[in-house]
């Protein structure tokens, strides 16, 4: 276990170095720079000389490797710099937005689990029945309805017509419900179908027939054997979803004015706020890496075959 953790740590260091360098190149090679935004050219009378002076001052005229070197020198001292536009420390900005995005992602995943597990399980158990048809319809609708439209519909129903929930903001648990449900419903469709097909596959295995022949109850066979066996592919997609959820909840954050990092980074990209973009990419890379590592480790506990294979090959003591 320790060896695996050490290996993972080395991997993460290499991964961070590569990702920061590549992202730095991409961000800087994209056309434009933040100077026009910093100088508020659309509001303050600025001359071209002033634009060039600031460009020089911020080092944008330096070679790319020099710019990366400067950034990296600060980075190893854990200084991620300040936003060009708001002067706020980048880490402070990310850390103030990250909890909101994480709680939105977790809320959405809970909603997804609450729908996908029962619906996917029932669809697998009663294949071809009306419940299977319903699960198919839910999946199709979930995949077809755009999140922003669903969000507005839910807002209209729960906030305007029923007055039960707030339309926006991050003001306690109640304000988390509508965005979580919107986001959760949007990702449910994938899991319902995935769980269904994975369960059908595992129910057809020999060990299920063997369990039945031993007289174990159907309920126990389903939950203790088939369900557990069907989880690894679902969890793999789950890991990917969590990464994309954290990075891609922008539309939901905008509609519900939920102050996460998704919207923050889109604004930063729009105004070429390099330190914020760079800091965000780094944090996201680490989060996604950690989630994927956790997913990898979870396979061992869900799939006994993997543990057996590893024991045979002497990987575990």
């Amino acid at each position, binding site marked *: 276990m320790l060896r695996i953790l050490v290996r993972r740590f080395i991997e993460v260091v290499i991964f961070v170095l590569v990702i920061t360098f590549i992202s730095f190149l991409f961000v800087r090679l994209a056309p434009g720079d933040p100077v026009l935004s910093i100088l508020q*050219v*659309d*509001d*303050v009378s600025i001359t071209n000389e002033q634009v060039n002076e600031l460009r020089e001052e911020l080092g944008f005229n330096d070679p790319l490797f020099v710019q990366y070197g400067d950034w990296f020198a600060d980075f190893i001292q854990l200084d991620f710099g300040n936003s060009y536009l708001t002067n706020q420390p980048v880490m402070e900005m990310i850390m103030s*937005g990250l909890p909101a995005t994480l709680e939105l992602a977790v809320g959405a995943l809970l909603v997804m689990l609450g729908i996908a597990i029962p619906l996917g399980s029932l669809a697998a158990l009663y294949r071809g029945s009306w419940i299977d048809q319903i699960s198919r319809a839910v999946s199709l609708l979930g995949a077809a309805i755009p999140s922003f439209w669903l969000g507005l519909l839910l807002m209209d129903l729960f906030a*305007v017509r029923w007055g039960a929930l707030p339309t926006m903001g991050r003001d306690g648990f109640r304000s988390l419900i509508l965005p979580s449900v919107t986001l959760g419903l949007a990702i449910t469709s994938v899991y319902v179908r995935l769980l269904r097909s994975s369960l059908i596959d595992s129910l057809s295995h020999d060990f299920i027939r063997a369990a039945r022949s031993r007289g174990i109850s159907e309920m126990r066979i389903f939950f203790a054997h088939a369900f557990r066996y069907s989880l690894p592919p679902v969890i793999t997609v789950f890991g990917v979803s969590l990464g994309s959820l954290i990075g891609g909840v922008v539309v939901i954050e905008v509609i519900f004015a939920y102050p996460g990092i998704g919207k923050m980074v889109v604004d930063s990209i729009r105004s070429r706020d390099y330190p914020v973009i760079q800091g965000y990419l780094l944090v996201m890379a680490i989060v996604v890496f950690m989630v994927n590592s956790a997913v990898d480790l979870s396979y061992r506990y869900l799939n006994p075959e993997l543990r057996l294979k590893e024991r045979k090959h002497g990987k575990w003591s």
Partner: protein
Amino acid sequence: MFRKSKSIFIVCLSFFLLAACSTESAKEQVGREKEVNLLFNFATSSLDPNVDTSYVSLRAGMTETLVHLNDEDLTIEPWLAKSWDSKDGQLWNFKLREGVTFQNGRPMDGKAVKASLERAMKDSPAIKNALRIESIEADGNALTIKTEVPFPEFPSELVHPNTSIIDVKESDYINKPIGTGPFAVSKFMPGTAVDLIRYESYWDGAAKLERARFSFNEDANARSLALESGDADIVFRPEVESLENLEAIDGVKVESTSTFRVHQMTMNLERKALQDIHVRKAIDALIDRSSIADTILHGHAEVAAGPFPSTFSFAPDYPKKENGMEAARGFLDQAGYKKVDGVMQKDGKPLTFTLLTYSSRADLPLIAQVFQSDAGQLGIDVKIKQIEIPEEYMAANRDWDLTTYSNLTAPRGDAGYYLNATYHPKGALNFSGADDDHLTSLIDKLNVTVEQDKRSDLAEDIAMYVDEQVYNSFILHPNTLVAYDAEKVKNWITSRSEYYMLTNELDVK
């Protein structure tokens, strides 16, 4: 297993019941206190008045500037500064209002204002460039400011929200700036809202509201729904398509006020075809302004004759121009173009334009399409190219002819900003590449003219000259839309500058 599911079901049910109860209690509380919730269309993660480009601290009544823009006659007037004068436009004497205190009780005196302005210039390169201050001296309630060069529009630059005066001794600028306005911050939720509480010792009389919330949502549909649900009392820029629904709600009032913004057709004068004034006049004649204002902006716009809205003292009375397809054809005829096989051409070369547009202002791509269609009827092929950041693209590339561009023209009541930025060869927004000696000398003259009347006359002359030369073509001034619950909100004024929103006069019935 089933017992567990039952427990989860009961927990969920209790949660929803509790949620419903808390909604009731929140609504009851709103009824008891004099407060409003204003929903604005830009979010901010920082309240720093000297840096934040959403200008929330000024708009929400937390901070004030030395100079105020009068929304009715569009002139500048005293605010934290009682008076000012300068003989040469370079050395300025300001007298501050007496008896003004910051929200922490400290006096707003010359020393505090000097420290605040110096901090603004240090932290904001934009403000440093806008103010061009060389030195500030403070003596009691008097300030002597020397600018780097003679700078006659200096007082009007002090209208800029980023020059807000704050107590720099309190350093939590991001979450709790201390200003002199009628409302102080009680809680800031970055990206969501700022809760405000009345500042009892406000110099102009304590606010009528006890509390206020200034919240943000960038989605226009969601803002309309917030007004419908009662979550917000005043909503900025609701979706134009939702206006009928909103107006149908009892008590909801929609106000449509013209702004200092102009949607224009920027012309690249470095392109050969556009160097001919008749071609530029043809483009100008082809723009069907009334139809664009009526169909694309649903009537919530003023047709533009020039860059400055007609209410400004420096907006000239332009001579009536020939408009429409026939007029455009006539101008092209004068430029030597003939229609051959349905294509407008000169010396065998067809007249084609590359028209840039961008989506951050949703009406601009639509205007581009209308122009493309009208030009097509005349035999001009217009290729529309969608770009992301117009300022960057236009500055770095010259492979375009026209751009639908939106520009603020006189945000602080003076024409100097727009004319310098857009028509001076050194201006950072001179994307047309205008380099006309006569025009430059007129702008240079404006830049050393101190007297306000003379400045207005000169700005009027420059606007007239730009119009004669058709260096750019002006389409319309879009309106600001505000919807609010008129049964609850009292004394709301939709300011044209959009600088002043929560005031000490704002009240609830």
